[in-house]
């Protein structure tokens, strides 16, 4: 064990803070995390703020302003290991829906003085701007996987974060398939596992919060959605949700737009 605790910094970009809260919700493991890391920056938990450089930086949110482009580069320069946490940081998040529209139009509609707003036309993941050492998916990510990634970092091993479909979690949990059994359109077959089988185990179709699985076949699933009675608009919305900017989901949504 190293004499000095690694310094951990948690940073917020364009986001709802849910990913940081997922980390804060790791109640049983929080003391162990605080014991093994020096918490240098974590605004959801403490006002204390230590200077860099940092051993591990965890980035929440997407890049949506010119200022954030500068900030992420600065944090990268100060961080040895950089983790993008959650759908926004790994895929641009739900706010990447702006990428399909004219943001200028929104600004004029929403703000009395749109000229005060300095924003980018797109919301993009961290990896579009800096090299990222590990991406942990989810909207929000699973606390269990967050602890696994931090534990794997400490042990110097690869984290157990499989890229297979959500269907594996359903079958391992014994959840009866909501699509085969209930005719409910479910993104599970094209979505990466990891959430803990949240929606299907409660009779809902998967919303695709964890983004595309390792080898997604979106056109085949979309064709089946059509057979289940979903029209083009429904299918577009299923793929244009929390991870609309990922290659597989973007391409499929555009086929129905």
């Amino acid at each position, binding site marked *: 064990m190293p004499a000095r605790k690694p310094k951990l910094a948690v940073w917020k970009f364009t986001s709802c803070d849910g990913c940081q809260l997922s980390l804060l919700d790791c109640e049983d493991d929080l003391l162990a995390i605080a014991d093994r890391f020096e918490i240098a920056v974590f605004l959801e938990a403490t006002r204390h703020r230590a200077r860099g450089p940092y051993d591990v930086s965890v980035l929440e949110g997407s890049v949506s302003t010119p200022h954030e482009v500068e900030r992420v580069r600065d944090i990268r320069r100060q961080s040895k290991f950089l983790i993008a946490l959650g759908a926004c940081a790994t895929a641009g998040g739900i706010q990447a829906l702006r990428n399909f529209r004219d943001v200028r139009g929104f600004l004029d509609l929403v703000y009395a003085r749109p000229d005060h707003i300095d924003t980018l036309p797109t919301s993009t993941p961290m990896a579009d701007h800096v090299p990222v050492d590990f991406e942990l998916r989810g909207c929000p990510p699973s606390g269990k996987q967050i602890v696994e990634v931090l534990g794997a970092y400490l*042990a110097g091993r690869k984290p157990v974060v499989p890229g297979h479909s959500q269907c594996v979690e359903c079958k391992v949990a014994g959840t009866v398939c909501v699509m085969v059994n209930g005719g409910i359109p479910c993104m599970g077959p094209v979505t990466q596992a990891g959430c803990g089988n949240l929606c299907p185990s409660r009779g809902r179709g998967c919303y695709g919060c964890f983004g595309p699985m390792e080898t997604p076949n979106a056109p085949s699933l979309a064709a089946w959605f059509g057979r289940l009675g979903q029209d083009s608009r429904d299918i577009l919305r299923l793929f244009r949700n929390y991870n609309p900017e990922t290659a597989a989901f973007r391409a499929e949504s555009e086929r129905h737009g």
Partner: protein
Amino acid sequence: MDAAAVFERTELGRLVAILAADGYRVIGPTRRGTAIVYGDIAGDADFAIGLIDEQEGGTYRLREVDDPRVFNATAGQTSCRQYLFAPRQRLWSAERTGTGFRLAEDSAGAEPPLAFIGVRACDLAAVGVQDRVFGGHYPDPRYMMRRRRALIVAVACARAGNTCFCASMGGGPEVGPGHDLALTELVDGGRHVFVAETGSERGALLLARLDPRPATGAEIAAARAQTEAVKGRMGREMVAGGPEAIRANPEHPRWHEVAGRCLTCTNCTLVCPTCFCSTAEDVADLGNARTERWQRWDSCFTLDFSYIHGGSVRKTAASRYRQWITHKLSTWWDQFGMSGCVGCGRCIAWCPVGIDITEEARAIRDSQ
């Protein structure tokens, strides 16, 4: 069936009670939401009575029927597999002790023994396949422990589903070896009985506690006729020569056609009652004092499954689908001296996009 006995429908609840009193965890077909699954049975009311399943590629629905039969549904999503070959189980754990570490191995010995009631012929055949796999050169101690202690009451099907093809795979509908008791449910007017045959000493002792009487010739004939009739009602068929054609055509264009539909989601393999692949996951605590090794179901449809140094061997969906179906229908014979498919049809119904193993085999055979 010469030494068959008969017991009344009303004795079934007592069978459950006897097994529970003997310390078994009783498992049978029960309703969960809008499906019938293998689940815990505490009493007669837990059986899925008055329901039948309607299945097609990618579709499973229940329908209420005015029929007193207890065992009227065909194969559902689950089988004996998740009880005997647990989806996720800890293999061992290790704790740091000063300069070394201490290992503790997990065994299945502390679990209550399993008693399955209502196991279909195909599912019993599948248990036989997994017995061969897990009991071979390198026996799996957890599977073997559960299997040795398990009691199986099989029931011959009175109806076949749209996705059933056991008759063409030899997996049914007659109940094969491996059971302790084999039942045929007969409903005729006001009469509702089970014709029972014993498959083991344990089964014979159990049957004797159910107040049985010897079966009449007419009852034996009726039971045989019922099972025979099911053969003709299979919704699917594995074509003769299908497995050979698959093996002989590794470069067939059909593999690319099916890959266009295949989601590589793993469902076919995880609902298959004979698939046996697993992976190991290490879980360590943040304090670096304890680590655990867990076994989890895996599938030949994941990239990790064929990952070796430098990458995955089977990158394309075509190569993964071909691997699965070729192994299941053909090379399983080379490995285990039997077919890996029993004809239960689960992979057809629970494929989210309805890919049909019998259709793929037929397409390749017919194109030769």
